[in-house]
Every structure is written in C-alpha cells, then in structure tokens.
C-alpha cells in the first residue's frame, strides 16, 4: 500500500463517526485518520473491539492492545447482529483479491470453486459488513489481476461501495459502474486504464489528489515505525 493511498484513505474518514476495519492494511489508514484528522473516530474491529485506540498498527484484528483500549468488547454474534447488521457502523474499509466494475468483491477462490487454482481465505465478515455499513470503501492495489472483467467468485456485493482507493487514484460509482474520478499526482488516465481489466470510464473534470502534507507524512511514517 503506497503512502499516498494510505493518506487518501485516511482523509475519507475526516467527517466519519465510526469505521469498521477489515484485516490488513486498512488499519494503518484508520489509525492515521484518528491521529491527524478525527480524534473522535470510533475504530471497530471484527474481533469485537469497539472504540479501540491502538498506538501501533496491529498485526491481527484481535491483538491484545485492541481489547485493552476499546470502549467495549463484544462477542462475535453481538458484533454482527447488533452493531454491523443494523448499520450502526458508518463506514467499512475492506480489501479484496478481485473487484469488478460494480464493486463486487472476490476473496474466495481464483479459478473454479470445486477445483481452485488458488484457494483464498474466504468471506470472513465481508459480505454482511458490506451490506450492513452504509458506506463501503475498498482499498486495493491497482492491477489487472485485481480489477477484473469478471470475478471468479462473487463473495461480497458492491451496492454500498462509495469509493475504491488504489495506488493510482480513486474510483467511484457513476451510473452503477466504477468510474475514475481522481488520479494521484503524476498518474495519467491511460496508465490507470492499462491497469484495469475492463474499459474504464473516467469523468471529464477529473481531480488530482492533493499531495500528502508534511503533517500527514510525518504522522504516517512515525506510526509505521512504532
């Protein structure tokens, strides 16, 4: 995950009340958002920790520091039924192995389900997180391996996807299709199209990412070095 990608993801949480954080890298962006933009942001991890205040980026979603700093710690059935399924968590940060033009995600298999070429971890919490949380932000590396014409398996539906943040730019749904709305500094539209497995549409008044500020960069570098 590039620095600019993390910084852009963190900026998405400036106004957010709460964010659900999937496994892996989205955690860095959410912690950065609490440090720089939004100290009241409620971080929610699938392990049951609500209002966690980690000082370091946790390796797993269930590291001890998350439980020790949380406002409350709940069981898995309670997490999914009372908190996620009801829409109480505003934004979800998710990753995926494959994404299609409708924002649908695959984290199950590459190849056929019965005889996969690559067996991926599986759904985890993603399907109900993506339908429960009103806004879904997908964070993914921009390549044809990930941005595909057709998913090998539809694990998670994309109807709540509001943004896809990549190392090249930002995609948002326009007329139900993910469309390029923003590129990072120095990235061309052609370069993004080249890395996308479908004929990517781009809006006319494309914006260019405001470069990371000194404050954002130093906070991010300090965070990952802890």
């Amino acid at each position, binding site marked *: 995950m590039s620095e600019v990608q993390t910084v852009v993801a963190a900026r998405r949480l400036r106004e957010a009340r709460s964010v659900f954080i999937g496994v892996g890298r989205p955690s860095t962006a959410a912690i950065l958002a609490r440090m720089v933009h939004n100290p009241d942001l409620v971080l929610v991890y699938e392990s*049951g920790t609500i209002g966690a205040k980690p000082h370091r980026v946790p390796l797993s*979603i269930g590291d001890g520091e998350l439980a020790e700093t949380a406002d409350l710690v709940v069981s898995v059935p309670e997490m999914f039924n009372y908190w*996620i399924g009801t829409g109480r968590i505003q934004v979800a940060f998710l990753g995926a192995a494959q994404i299609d033009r409708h924002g649908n995600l695959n984290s199950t298999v590459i190849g056929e*389900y019965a005889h996969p070429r690559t067996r991926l971890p599986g759904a985890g919490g993603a399907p109900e997180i993506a339908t429960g949380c009103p806004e879904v932000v997908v964070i993914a590396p921009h390549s044809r391996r990930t941005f595909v014409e057709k998913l090998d*398996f539809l694990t998670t539906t994309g109807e709540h996807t509001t943004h896809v943040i990549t190392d090249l730019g930002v995609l948002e749904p326009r007329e139900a299709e993910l469309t390029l709305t923003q590129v990072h500094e120095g990235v061309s539209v052609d370069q993004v199209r080249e890395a996308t497995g479908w004929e990517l549409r781009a809006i006319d008044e494309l914006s260019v990412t405001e470069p990371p500020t000194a404050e954002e960069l130093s906070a991010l570098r300090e965070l990952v070095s802890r």
Partner: protein
Amino acid sequence: MAEILQLSGAVAGLVHDGDSVALEGFTHLIPFAAGHEVLRQGRVDLELIRMTPDILYDQIIGMGAARKLVFSYGGNPGVGSLHRFRDAVEHAWPRPIELEEHSHAGMANRYAAGASHLPCAVMRGYTGTDLMHHTRVRPITCPFTGEELVAVPALRPDVSIVHAQEADRRGNVQLWGIPGVQKEAVLAAARSLVTVERIVDKLEPRPGATIIPGWVIDAVAEAPGGSRPSYSLGVTERDNDFYRVWDRVSRDRDEFTAWMHEHVMVGS
C-alpha cells in the same frame, strides 16, 4: 459438573475418531495445547469447525487428521495464506478435504442457534453472493413482515474445546478480553472441554468477563501457556513473530512435517 482432569485424559475421554470438533477462539484464546493433544492421540477423520482456521487448523489439516472443514475465514491474519489448508484444497495433500464455508455472520448465528438448541438462525445476508449456491443456507420469508431473509442451520458440534484464563476447583470458568464465540460453542456442543491458564481457589470477578458455569462443561484441564502462539489477555502475549515464521515453515510439505514431529508430536 465439570471434572478437573489432566489434559491427556480429558481429550481421550471426549474426542473420538470421526467427531465434529470445534476448537474456538477468535485470534485470542485459541486452544493450541488441546488441539496438539488431539493430534498426539492420533485422532482421524475429524470434522473441524472453526470461524477462523488459523495456524492450529493448518497444523491439524496438514497432519491429515481432518476429513471436513466448516469455516468462514481460512487465512493467517495480517500475514497471508494458510499453506497447509491451501495445499489440502488445491492438491488434496495429504488427503482431500471437504469444505463447508460461510460468512462470519453466518457462523456466529449458527453457533448462537446451536447454543439456543434451535434448528436454525434467521439473518440478513448471503443474498446476491455465490456463497448462497455453495453452502447450507436457504431463503426464508418473515411471517410477520414479509421480508426476505435467510436461514442458516444450527451448529451442534460433538465436542467443543475452548481456552480461558482461569477456572475454580468446581470448574467454573472466567475469561476476559475478546470473547469470540466461545460461550456459544460450549453451549452448542454435546460435550465440552475448557483448558485454562490456571486453576484458582476462588474466581475474582472482573468487569466485562464471560463466566461459563462448571455445570455446563464436561471437563476442565489446566494448560498453562495453552493458547500460545495465540494469547490469553493478561497472562501471555500474542507471538506475532511466530505467525510470520509459520508462513515459511508451512510452505514446504517436508519442512512442515519435520517441524510438527519435532515440536508437536513428541511423546506421541
């Protein structure tokens, strides 16, 4: 009333070949010591149930002790793949493994239904996904509102095994930190074993702790450090380095097998 037993005797009495076995613990409190004891006793043809298979199930699958896996997320959290799980699914090594997979919400509701002794749980989910066609889930209409929902079948494992920080001498268990689905797993199962870091004369109540009374548990066994390389909050710390090292150890069949014989299977 729970019997306080040695770990080996408890596993021998409760876990049989062919059983459906749930070893639960969501990142935290994973019952590694008990899982290793199951392996050392040579149990085979197990139906393994667990939301997040993790390293422990990678080991059991890699040793060929499982015929089926019921799960929702088979990864090494924050690190990547579970290589033994992948090898079993992709190449049937060391034996083919049947999969029944769900989402976390589905598995959590299945345990809750099992703990309630209900046949199924009703929830929102699965609709529009390919999982709907590859697992045990059925559409159901709410008889009151007409809303289209789904039903998932209850989980009723033959045996559930969980780990906790402490128990008293009557087998009452107290655990704190991330509670996962351990209480549900114990209450859903026909038989249950809880391993603990320590057995104490009297449980000191802790705010927010989960208590599982000894009279719903079959056996309690002391197993200090029994969740390593996972952790028991307040007693041991998660060995994140081991989770990274496992990625290397588990990639190669021979290296994996040698590691297991050296570190887990000794004494069997």
